């Protein structure tokens, strides 16, 4: 066991865990932040996506010991009341079916848009293909991302 002071959503949180513990389980089991989901445990599905210093990473395969001073952002850190433009776009396009993968999808999309505010379809495919949606909401995810990216729809959606 070892103590870690983690920067999560702008707040420092201390945990005392085994150094090999993935951030996913630190968040879910130790900090009761369950928005980040367990899907595969081997960085294949993207359900556990969080940001480490602004980049999308799979928290199931990120040991707490390597986070160091890095800033972690989780779905809870976007906004608690769904006011972040991406969250609004997701609601506007009524993207979710079961919803389990969506926090990971949203975190991947947010990282994409931060680094590439006007992504092409190919950019979106490349950035989002690490996130599986078993319900098949890919078209709406793409539309939601484009609506945030598009200057023509400042409110984050059409319709």
């Amino acid at each position, binding site marked *: 066991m070892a103590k870690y002071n983690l920067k999560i959503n702008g707040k420092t949180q201390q945990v005392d865990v085994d150094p090999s513990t993935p951030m996913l389980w630190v968040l879910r089991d130790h900090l009761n932040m369950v928005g*980040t989901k367990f899907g*595969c445990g081997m960085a294949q*599905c993207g359900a556990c996506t969080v940001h480490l210093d602004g980049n999308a990473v799979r928290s199931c395969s990120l040991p707490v010991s390597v986070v160091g001073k890095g800033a972690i952002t989780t779905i809870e850190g976007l906004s608690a009341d769904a006011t972040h433009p991406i969250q609004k776009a997701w609601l506007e396009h009524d*993207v979710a079916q*079961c919803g389990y993968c969506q926090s990971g999808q949203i975190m991947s999309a947010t990282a994409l848009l931060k680094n590439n505010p006007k992504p092409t379809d190919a950019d*979106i495919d490349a950035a989002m293909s690490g996130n599986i949606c078993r319900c098949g909401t890919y078209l709406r995810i793409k539309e939601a991302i484009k609506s945030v990216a598009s200057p023509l729809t400042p409110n984050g959606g059409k319709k």
Partner: protein
Amino acid sequence: MKNQDKKNGIKAPIGGLGAGGNGAVSRRSFLQSSALAGGGMLLSFGWFTSANAAEKMGVLNLPEQQWSELAAYIKITPDNVVKILCPNPEFGQNVMTSLPMMVAEELDCDWKDVVVEMSTHDNVKYGSQFTGGSNSVRMYWKPLRNAGAAARQMLIEAAAQTWGVSASEITTKAGILSHSSGKSAKYGEMASKAATLAVPKEVKLKAPKDFSIVSHSKKNTEGVKVVTGKPLFGMDYKVDGMLIAMIQHPPAFGMKLKSFDATAAKKMPGIKDIFSFKLYDDGFVQGGFDTSTFNEMIAIVGKTTWEVMNARKKLNAQWEAAGDVKVTMNGRGGKQEVTVPGRLETTANQMEMMAEYAQKPAQQLRKDGDPETAFKNAAQIIERTYNAPFLAHNTMEPMNFFAHVQEDKALVAGPLQAPGWMEPTLVKILNLPADKIEIQMTRMGGGFGRRAYGSYVYEAARISQKMKAPIKLIYTREDDMTYGIYRPMYTATYRAALDANKNLIGFHVKGGGIPENPVHANRFPAGAVDNYLAEGWEIPSNVTIGAFRAPRSNFNAAAEQSFLDEVAEAMGKDPIAFRLDLLKRAKENPVGKNNDYDASRYIGVLELLKEKSGWGKPENAGKKRGVAAYFCHASYAGHVVDMVMRDGQPYVEQVTSAVDCGVVVNPDAARNMVQGAVVDGIGQSFYGALTHKEGVPEQSNFHNYRMIRMNEAPKKIDVHFVQNEIDPTGLGEPPFPPVFGAVANALFQTTGKRYYNQPFKVEIEKIKS
């Protein structure tokens, strides 16, 4: 089974879903006390949700007595917040929105005032609460509208009594009661009085043309929780003092636990206990949804997930061949002794076995006319065999369940499609009466049929009972994929007899599978061909199988719709025109009896599909398109798939879909579900497969079980619904099966080759090499 709760003056739902009882135990008082005894919620696991009234969430922790209950599904506060209980668990099919919409429509309230709560399990109050079979909207269409209309009438009566006017003079709109004298009141003002009135026995329901909520798109009531990462799913459920449990199941179908040494594993940090347990006691009669092939497993229980995962790796377990096992089943075929074969199956042998069985005489399922003579006299016979593998459900949320079993009662909570089917088994294995077992349903991270089979619920209950503590059982992805309740492996041989003028004079389907026969004998083209024969056979197996989104149909539609495409080609007919000709025959002069489908609705879907896809139009002449349409459950769906070659690979670029599911309750969500079914169908048909080697599933996680991803999804899926006023007939499954057939037919147009074996991606590679 359930005792009707009389204590709180709760009225039974009208519509007669439940069977009343005379028991004295108050379920609600039990629930309240059990919630307290279960320990305070560490997480604010809220059962309330709302798309509109997110700001109202704060007021929702009102004590129970401040809600006035009108009929079983509706509670209203003095502040005019309308709480609608959703009877059925949500797994992405939108019932937490669409079912409350049906109540709100007849209640005539303002949708903005509605909050939704997942109800607890209570078959008396809420009916069967089964999510599956594309049944939720269909089953609750009348009862929920009745409940809304009854509550509205009670509010009117309360206002009439308060104002001293006739009820017939009072009108309602958007949650406001009005009288011609100018008097008006919000529902909330009349709710407590209304709750004391008798529930009317008869109510008048609105005509579809008068709907203002139903058939008008509403956003997902749990959308805000989804996008803000609030606790919502079974995985997120947590109480104080809860332990984490995992199970270790035998590595192969056909094996069982021999012995294990947990000395090293038990010394690992955070571990509370490791023990083996039996799921069912000797002599237990397995119901149709108690499916499990491994009766003895090892439980690893500890403080946190990662600690349990690590300790599990140190487990030293030996396994041995189980041999043939005799079990008593009480499933589809009634109560019977069944021998589960001990054979360790390998996919190549499974294929050989199926090919061998396909040659043997099979059970006749339906026969019309004289198919033998038709085939003997045929000028041309087309015969094709189709194969499809086992499929794993791969819900994004792996199986999991919370259980807190105490001496005299139990609480279980988590993702579950069929609480009513799990309850009798929990009663038996926990030896507790039904009214002492509380089942709560969380939102499910996908279901697709998998969560109708509750062995994971029983495992959680067994482990909690042993630990005398609240536990949450979690499957890893590997557990979930290798200890599944799979879509069976299927094969079917179709034969068509054509006369010298290329008329279809005979049709024969003979299908089988491991361990289930897929054939739906009374479906199209039964009823459209004079001489028809359907036969089926089955090979028993220890591989556990169950419902997978549109069971059997998901294979039949692939095989039959590919075959019809090929028959149409041989007859020199357009594939849609060919189907329409057959359906016209079935409509005007059907062959035989018991044809399951309504030929008119089938025709309607094909005609809408033809129109919306621009089928046969000159502007689409260059497109490589495949078409298929299918009836299953109670609805009709068809797709036109446009395929291109992209980077040397066939790619579905665009899809046009047409569906007749009767009245569409929540149109935008319904479109979402059809689009999802299309993506799912493309993914499963191209990539889906679970194979075995010596009983061991060869795929264990998403690195070797390929799932469709965003870059492989079509760019556009246009969804069109047949507009009619037929009571809803279900939507979750029907759009899924025909995707397989449409993809297969588009593959032929694109590559010039017919594909008979799923997954198509494997077949494509084989043909190339």
